[in-house]
């Protein structure tokens, strides 16, 4: 598992996520799709309005692509049990989330499985406000 940094896109699952997030999740991410990415954390931004972290995801040839994972806001993450140092550079994580609509290497993280196996509710979708009527 440790060396198997495969590009694990778990299929574009039609997940029927009737949610949009605080900052208009629906414009940026495709809520009808979901994906799982597995890789090594390269950077963490614990910032408002949304936290981000970046993950190097390697394909079968070992080539790394850096993905920007967008999370909820730090206050929301704290209430979900996160701390600012829960993810560190070098950690190996799995991220389940929704991809960007425009094909950018970005995803809205919904759950993050940490290096120690804990599965954390994470993302903008989780922090979706009631902006579902747009």
């Amino acid at each position, binding site marked *: 598992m440790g060396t198997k940094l495969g590009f694990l896109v778990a299929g574009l699952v039609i997940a029927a996520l*009737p949610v949009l997030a605080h900052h208009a999740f629906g*414009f940026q991410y495709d809520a009808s799709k979901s994906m799982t990415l597995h890789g090594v954390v390269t950077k963490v931004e614990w910032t408002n309005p949304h936290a981000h972290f970046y993950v190097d995801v390697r394909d079968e040839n070992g080539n790394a692509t850096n993905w920007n994972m967008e999370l909820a806001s730090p206050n929301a993450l704290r209430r979900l049990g996160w701390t600012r140092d829960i993810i560190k550079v070098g950690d190996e994580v799995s991220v389940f989330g929704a991809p960007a609509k425009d094909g950018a290497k970005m995803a809205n993280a919904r759950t993050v499985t940490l290096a120690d196996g804990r599965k954390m509710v994470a993302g903008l979708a989780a922090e979706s406000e009631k902006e579902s*009527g747009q």
Partner: protein
Amino acid sequence: MRKDLATALCVAVVLILSSILAVGQKKQEEHEPQGVNPAGGGVPAVSLKHLEAKSSGPTPRTADGKPDLSGVWGPGLNMGSIAVNLKPGEELPLQPWAIKLTEERSTPEAKRTDPKPNCLPDGVPREDPFPYKIVQTPKLIVFLLEGNVHSYRQIFMDGSGHPTDDLEPSYYGDSRGHWEGDTLVIDTIGFNDKTWFDGAGHPHTEKLHVIERYQRPDSAHLEFEVTIDDPGAYTRAFKIYGHSPLLLNTDLMEYWCIENGAQDLIHIVK
């Protein structure tokens, strides 16, 4: 023979346990957090759901016998569109120009101008997926807002009316409150026209007059009705309804939208 049987039994147990675990895993995946109930109304964001009071008691009261609305509350409206908070079957009585403007605001480009992702105040009655806190005193009630920007609303309970001279239009307006039995009634005028009512972009003008009626029927729930009267944008007054859950074991936290808002706004709308 007995050993073979024991081995077979062990294998069977392992297989059964494995399948149970697999089903459990699948169930976990199926129950990935779904954000909020799209039906809205009283269902807060996932990060607040587990903080909702699980049991309730009688309405707390202050020394003077009024309901005590103090507490940390979850958002109580669906803010995708305020129309969701109307009574079933009702429609927003928009004037033609307001219909046109709402349509114009439906494009991703136009959403850039929504004050909310630009980290400006929400106005009334727009909410965010964050708690708000009510601090109640006999002469003044304060709504402390965790987001969209840290802000506050002052509700003057001293019997004074709205200022008679020209009010400087503001995001939260001028609020005066009084009690009608166990109902807190808040009358607000003096709004600017810079906010959108919701993510759908429903507009309002400076003629907006909002009357909120809050009740705490038990310790764990805040029920409210909001009358929106804006003859500048709507053909008649209308009412929306909200339900806020009491949140326990949390308090307001810092949230500074502006910190990195410009970057996230670019991400959102590009």
